[in-house]
Structure formats: structure tokens, C-alpha cells
């Protein structure tokens, strides 16, 4: 729970967190090393100096550290665990559903555990998805359409097998499809950041929600264009929101553009922990006001109500969370020593 200096209270659901192992011991090859190095560059490029971690801590941190950062030092009330398998780069995987499930098991009232699928896994993958649904009761999945897999150059949500997986999600009650549209490693002659397949899938599956992570950056323009036409498409703010510190002028422009095209009901906060820490992001976001010229040009405003929706209420709606009930669950789960102060 974040209480602003003004006294306003915010229930915060972080839509994008990971418990990963990028340590040298777990790296399978040079790509594993380069992958975590690249994450670390994002961390260095956009974090305030006080929040910079040494590289070994960033490579591999403990569940205790994660809990402390998100809920004790940070202001998250709940967090969605998004998996990133990358089994071609890491021996045990980088951040699988199974790895993340450790956090969920320790603090069930705090976490929403998401799964993943890859339509290139065919029938076996459909069975795995069923297993995830029955073992962990997942309500969402995280997809990487541009992930390298053997000979394959990635896939599109409009592919026939992807459609079968989405049908399965619908049957299993997995309503939230988080799709990573972002950096890829493939030398495709087409644009690997293309968001057009989201358009197609959102039309074919009106009962599913498609949350485009990183708001389609680096194709924000195309993303806004498809999102305006599809009411079940959402924008995840991970990677966009930390601009608030280093490039607040651009952040003002990005958030106002998103409010203009999608509106305050279809944007969700995500820290992308451990790349960024939820403490400074929340403090700065709640305090943030759009400059007059941007407000005038776009005709939108970032109000207290918009902030409440973006920081928690929208994700609560997507994941069926009753905020008042959840507050009580969290209060009851608090360890005795914390209650005693």
C-alpha cells in the first residue's frame, strides 16, 4: 500500500516481476552471459544511482531479497510472476514457472503466478499447459513470439498452432495473455517487433485479454494504432515507466499518447523487477504531473484516478481480485514480528 504525501492511498499490483537465475553457473553458453548483461545495461541505463546493484547480486538474488524489495522496501501489494524460460541459454532455465512458483508457495496472498506456452511444442505443449493450469491454477501466460527455437524464427499469434493454444487457454480459464513484443535475436528480413498479429488474435478471441508488454516499444506507434481498435488489448508499462526518472519529458509524452489512444482503463503498471525497483518508480509515478504543453497538445490528463487504475485497479479487474478482501488476506498473513512493529 502506498500512501502519497497528499494522504491518497494506492493498492498496487505489479504486473511484471521475475525471480531469475542468470548466474555464470546456470549459463549454458555465451548467449546466456550476454542476455543477463543486456538486462544489467537496462538496469544501469534507467535506474537512479542509489538503486544500482552490483552485478553478482543482479545475476542471482534470493526469494528473501525479492520479498523485501517488492513489499517491504517497495510499495507493491501484489505482484505477477512472469516466466522467461530461455532453456537454450540457461541450464535450469532463466526464470521458469516452476522457479517462480517458489515465491507463490511462500506468499500465496502476494503473488499471481503465470505460466507460459510455445505453440511450436505441439501436442506435448498443450499437455504441459493443462498441467500448469491444474498444478498452479494459472490465470495468465507470458509469451515470447520472437524466441529462437532450433530452426524456427519465432511465431505469430495468428499461426494455426497458436490459435489452438489460445483456444485451450480459453477452455482452461487462462484469460490473460501477456505478449512480449521487444528485443529479439533473429536476423529476420521482416520486422521482428511487428505487433500486427496481436490485432488478429484479439479479434479472434474477444474473451481473452491481450496485454502487450513494454507497450510495444520499440513499435509504440503501431501498437497504439492496433490497440485503439481492439477493446481487449492492454498496454503493460514495464520498460516505459522507468523513463520517468532519466527522461521525464519523454515519459510524459509516452504516457499521454497511451492515455490518448488506449485510455486509463487499459494500461497496467509493471516494474520488471529485478531490472527496476518498485520503490522509486511508485514514488515518482504518483508524484508525476503532465506538463501543460503536453496536456494541451494531447488533450489528456494523468489524474489521481488514472494513477489508481494503472497501478492496481486495472490488473485487479483482469485477474479477478477483490481489493478489499485481498487487503485483509495480506494483513492476516503478515508475520507476527512485523505486526508487533
Amino acid at each position, binding site marked *: 500500500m502506498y500512501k502519497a504525501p497528499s494522504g491518497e492511498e494506492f493498492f498496487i499490483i505489479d504486473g511484471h516481476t521475475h525471480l531469475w537465475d542468470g548466474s555464470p553457473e546456470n549459463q549454458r553458453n555465451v548467449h546466456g552471459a550476454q542476455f543477463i548483461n543486456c538486462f544489467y545495461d537496462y538496469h544501469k541505463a534507467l535506474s537512479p544511482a542509489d538503486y544500482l546493484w552490483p552485478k553478482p547480486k543482479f545475476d542471482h538474488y534470493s526469494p528473501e531479497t525479492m520479498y523485501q524489495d517488492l513489499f517491504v522496501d517497495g510499495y507493491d501489494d501484489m505482484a505477477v510472476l512472469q516466466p522467461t524460460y530461455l532453456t537454450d541459454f540457461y541450464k535450469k532455465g532463466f526464470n521458469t514457472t516452476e522457479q517462480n512458483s517458489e515465491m507463490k508457495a511462500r506468499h500465496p496472498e502476494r503473488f499471481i503466478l503465470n505460466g507460459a506456452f510455445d505453440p511450436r511444442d505441439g501436442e506435448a505443449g498443450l499437455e504441459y499447459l493443462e498441467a500448469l493450469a491444474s498444478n498452479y491454477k494459472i490465470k495468465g501466460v507470458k509469451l515470447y513470439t520472437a524466441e529462437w527455437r532450433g530452426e524456427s*524464427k519465432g511465431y505469430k499469434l495468428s499461426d494455426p498452432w497458436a490459435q489452438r493454444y489460445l483456444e485451450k487457454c480459453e477452455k482452461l480459464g487462462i484469460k490473460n495473455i501477456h505478449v512480449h513484443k521487444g528485443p529479439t535475436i533473429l536476423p*529476420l528480413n521482416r520486422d521482428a517487433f511487428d505487433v500486427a498479429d496481436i490485432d488478429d488474435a484479439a479479434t479472434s478471441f474477444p474473451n481473452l485479454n491481450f496485454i502487450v508488454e513494454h507497450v510495444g516499444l520499440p513499435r509504440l506507434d503501431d501498437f497504439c494504432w492496433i490497440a485503439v481498435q481492439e477493446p481487449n488489448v492492454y498496454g503493460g508499462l514495464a520498460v516505459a515507466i522507468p523513463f520517468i526518472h532519466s*527522461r521525464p519529458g519523454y515519459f510524459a509524452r509516452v504516457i499521454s499518447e497511451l492515455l490518448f489512444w488506449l485510455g486509463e482503463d487499459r494500461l497496467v503498471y509493471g516494474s520488471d523487477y529485478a531490472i527496476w525497483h518498485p520503490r522509486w518508480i511508485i514514488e515518482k509515478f504518483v508524484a508525476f504531473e503532465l506538463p501543460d504543453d503536453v496536456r494541451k497538445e494531447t488533450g489528456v490528463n494523468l489524474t489521481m484516478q488514472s494513477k489508481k487504475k494503472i497501478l492496481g485497479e486495472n490488473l485487479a479487474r483482469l485477474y479477478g481480485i477483490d481489493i478489499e478482501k485481498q487487503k485483509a488476506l495480506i494483513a492476516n498473513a503478515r508475520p507476527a514480528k512485523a505486526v508487533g512493529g
Partner: protein
Amino acid sequence: MDRETKLNAVRSKLARVVDPELDESLTELGFVESIDVDANDRVHVCLRLPTYWCAANFAFMMASDARERIAELPWVKQVLISLADHFYSDRINEGVAQGPSFAAAFREEASGELDELRAIFKAKAFERRQHEIVRYLLAREYTPEALVSMTIRKLEELDLADAEGDRLRRRYLEARWERRGETTPQSNAFVQVDGKPLALSSFPDYLARLRRTWLNTEVNGALCRGLLEARYRDEAKKP
């Protein structure tokens, strides 16, 4: 010609090569790590990018454009481009050195040429440049009516009191002349990317679309610069 003159000539050639996605030159972006001319007039250029994972298609375009531009210098015997610290460094370096098409360099992964992708990003660059000059003019009391009917000649002749306006105009006109279709000094200065004229009634919607394209490129540029700086930060501190 002394070595310094040659290095400068290479540098100005590289200043004309753009990152297709960001519409900025390799030198402005800091993508040129080193330039050297050896005793046999062979030019060695090392490029570096913000991440190990930067899309290889764009990396290939930049490396091969750099090679072509530098080869235009009459004294150059050979151009050797190398791309450092990239997932596909070896493949790109080899492909560019032999001068084959992208499809040949990446025969398993790519199924065609890059022309279509280039055209998409040329169109985005056109819209971004148009947005910049249009915003500049709107802020200086030019009305939408005036802009919609302005000819290229008129735009060229406008008395823009500062260097910034002049730069934005030059960049836009360069893109404007490149657009397909018959273009003369009497043509409309401001047209849609497909050559269609602008309508006054839909001007605000049109501007909103341009703003979206402009912002995306700006934010990408800021992110790429930040990542490049973070990636090579410690190196820059070395004496």
C-alpha cells in the same frame, strides 16, 4: 592526401549513413567505435551497437551501407567493416566483406531481401521529419490552412529566423523530394506519406498520427543511446 584528411573523408561518409530505425547517423548515435586507414589505403571501421541482441537485419543494413558509402571515395582500395560484440558479429562481418545480399548472408534465417523493411522505415522517417517541421511552423503562427496549401517552393523560401528551423526544413525537404510520384517546386510541400494531399478537415487527426510516429522514434533513440552508454560506460572511463 595525408592520413588525417583521409580519416575525415571517411568520417563524413559515415555521417551520411543512418540507422534506418532511428533515422539518425551512425556518427551522431555513437555507433562508430574506431576508424583507421592503413598504409595500403584500406579502411578499417569498427561499429558497435547498444545491445548484443540488436536486430541483425538493421545491423546488416548499416554495415553494408557504410561499406558502400566509403567505397565511393576514389583513393580507397578496400573497406573492412567489423561489428563488435553482437550475436551475429561473425556472420554479418563475413557477409558484408563479401558484399552479398542479406538473403545470401543469412540463407537459413531470411527468406528475402530487406527492401520492403527499408521502405517501411523510410516512410516512418518521412512522417517524423514532417511532424518536426510542421510543429515548428504551427508554433510560429503558421495556420493549418497555410500549411495544407503551401508549395515546396514556398517552404524553401520561408524566412525561418533560426538555425533549428532551417535544419528541420532541410531534413524534411530531403525526405519530401525522395517520395514517389511527380514532384515539382509547385507541388504541395506537405502531403501524406503515400503522396495524397492533406485535408484541412482531418488535419488534427493527421497530426495525432504523425505525433505517434515521431514519439516512437524519439523514445527508441533515447533508449538506444542510454543502453549504448551503459554498455560501454566502464570502457569510456579507461585512460
